[in-house]
């Protein structure tokens, strides 16, 4: 499973309340009818971290290796979508790829 802390956007020190709040906010942003995959990822992350016991069990027993995507998310998280500049448009309109 992907790092549930990254999926929910919480730190390792997050409390039960922080985690629930992050989950609810995530579901509000990605409700199941709009983005079922994201919702499923949020749900799984929430299940993995819901209680202190769950968080410690994740720390002790989860053996899924980190992925490059996780590393990217951790190192430089994505920001709000940006608009490419005119030069980027020009290159593509010239047929460059």
């Amino acid at each position: 499973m992907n790092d549930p802390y990254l999926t929910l956007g919480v730190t390792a020190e997050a409390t039960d309340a922080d985690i629930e709040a992050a989950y609810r906010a995530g579901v509000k942003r990605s409700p199941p009818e709009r983005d079922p995959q994201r919702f499923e990822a949020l749900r799984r992350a929430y299940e993995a971290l819901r209680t202190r016991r769950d968080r410690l069990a994740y720390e002790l027993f989860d053996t899924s290796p980190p992925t490059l995507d996780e590393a990217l998310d951790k190192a430089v998280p994505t920001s709000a979508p940006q608009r490419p500049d005119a030069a980027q448009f020009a290159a593509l309109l010239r047929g460059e790829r």
Partner: protein
Amino acid sequence: MSKKRNKRSARNKASPAALPSTALESSAREALQRGRYRDAIAHFKLLLKREPQATWHEGLAQAYEGRARNLIEKGMLKEALVMWENRHRLGDVAPLRRDHIALLLRLGRVREALELFNQAAGTLPPDALAALRAQLAACYLSGETEILERLAPEDPVVVHGEAAQAALAAYCSGDDAALEQALAVIPFRSPYRDGVQIFKALQHLAEQPDQALALLARVPAESAFAPLHQAVELALAPEQELTSRLADAGEITRRFALTLRGWPPERQALFDEARRLGDEPPPKALLQFLYRHRGRLGDAWVQERGRRLLIDAAPQSLEWPREAGGRPLSKAEMVQVGAWQAERQRGDPWYTLQCWELLAQHLESNHSPAPGSDQALRIALVLRRFDQQSDLLAYTTPSPEPDALDRAAAHLVERSLDYDPDAPQVYLRLIAYHLRGKELKAARRLLEPALARWPDDTQVLTAALDTAVAGGAFKKAAGFARRILALDPINKTARERLVKAHLAHARKQICNARPDLARQELERAGAWDQHGRFRTRRDIVEGLTTLATDAQAGASALRAANQRLGDGFTGRLIIGLEAAAVGRTPKALFADLGLSKPRTPDREDLMACLAQLREHLDSGARLPPQVATYFETALKGAARLEFSFQEFESACETLRRCHWETPRQAFAQAALKRWKDAPVFAWHAFEAKYQGAPWQASTTDVRRLERALEQAREQGDMRSVQRLLEVLEPLMMPFEPPPLPPGLEQELGPDALPMLIDLVGLDKLLDMLGLSREMKRQLKEVERQVGRQALVELLGAMIGGEPDALLPFPSPEGRAEGRRHRAQDDRSSDDDAPLNQLDLFP
């Protein structure tokens, strides 16, 4: 060889220059037709040197065009342009083509393209003109402003150019209102039409990605705006596809799409670096990548997550973090990696258990955890891990051996309660485990603190009721039942457990020849059985009680019960089971009652019988052998009836649970007649036939099993695959000893050799002794010439009279010793020494 032949054929071929014009022309036309444009060009050129014929000019023009297109396909754009230019120089025989102008635009030679476009505007077909205008429009938006100066003012590229440029500027600056305004000016038939769809898609990208995709779908693949279209589409790619699609995209497309997705440039750069590691980077390379960027990722995260990359290659990989520039792993971390590896490899369960125990010891020794602290909870979770994963205590009956695996697991789980007592399910699990083994003292030891902590928990109270019933403390049990019913008035479980307990006690009193006490128990059972669910059972037990004092009345009551049960197979089975429970054989009882042997059940009766058997087994009871013997023939006959696949399977599974192998085999064989080689039935038939001695199987049966395995794999029936493998794998292992019949293990030694030869066969025994082929041949020769006795003596001498010398059969003492050693709680031993941690990795 083929090169030589080619050279020879080339030498034999006449040079084109030597051919007469008619032959050369037909050769040129053939080359043109076959797409050999280079030959066609050369031949037409030769022809034109001889005589300038208009048809040859046309042929040459066609050849140039074909060659140009071929070169474009290969990406040789400049070479293709030379072909177009050569063609153009042929004059009127080669009218301008759209692709020639399009190529000039692609190559950025806008001025030349515009000149040709203006020349050809009157001659090109409308669709070619529209496509060129779209390309000019895209080119204009890319910054080629001279396009507007060199085109006619009424050209749509010029007319809508300003609005399109305004739309682009508005989008880039984030002015959505201006963008809307500019797009509204551009009509549907404009050369900027595809661009307009893309701008509209960009507006919906974040909030309505589906609508954005729908708008993008309106842009044709061959559009002049296709590169822009692809980049926007990539920005909308689902998360799980993104990495692979980014890998296929070009640099400019990727940057454009990632900017739209909100990837900062640093992230894009990091992605480029990560991509160089490959689609599935090896763990070591990935770990090095993580450590290289630990400044951004955070040391703690890299160490924690990076440890998961060490599992498969441990113990060598334990050095990787240090090699990558990180700190060396602590002892506890090494042990943790070892435990993960053990769990992943699913090897020796003792080894896995030992790993988790060792980790718990490290966690215990590093800190002295305060109750309720994270560290205390960690230790508790680690101590429970083995049982949690294997689910051992959920179904195992406590082994009589104190050093058995379940005992060791139960010991760890019970220890975990010292660190985390706030775990009712753990108490319940342990109580149930001990109750299965009638270990009342242990169950009570756990029940007391559980009851003190959760006095109103119905599950804990039910466990207390079960413990009381198991100890025969029915008053106490009734007290717990009342407490449960006070908390949960519709709780059926408590009542049923009490009824069953009183019935069990009544049976016991019948066995003790105390019908008076049995009646008391039956009265109590009746008081709790408010809905009469156990009425029939109570009647039968009452009949059996009466039978002890008044044979006639008892027999009459039991005959009446039999009639109420339908006088069928199931009814007889229920009475037979009750009779067996009070120490009477069904045969004798039914003879006393004057009832004939049961008939073969019909379909409905059989289903009811199977349900009864399951209920009987669920209560923890077994099928008494005298019952099995009495009903076996009639039950076997039912295998001839028509059943569905599921019904046959259900019958086989139930009979397997009863260890009732003869009818199970009959049902499995009957099913195999209908569903040939069906894996599930092949397995049931084999297991029922050989009953734990698969090495006795005939080659035909083993082959049938192998066919079933293949079929199970094809059908994706993983349960059957697993079951068949469990049977087949030991048969495949050349040196695997067969399990010995109970008691025989003690007799291993030269004296046991004749028995072993009979049991496994001489060949297999010699294999198990690990003898060379030559030695085996010689020993067989001895047997042939001198006899079996001489062979046995020779083998006895070879193994020196030492039972342990028969290596594949380790003595039970040795095996137990090994386990004892492994199960030892040797916290204070040197096993904790750092170097000894590596012993975790065999």
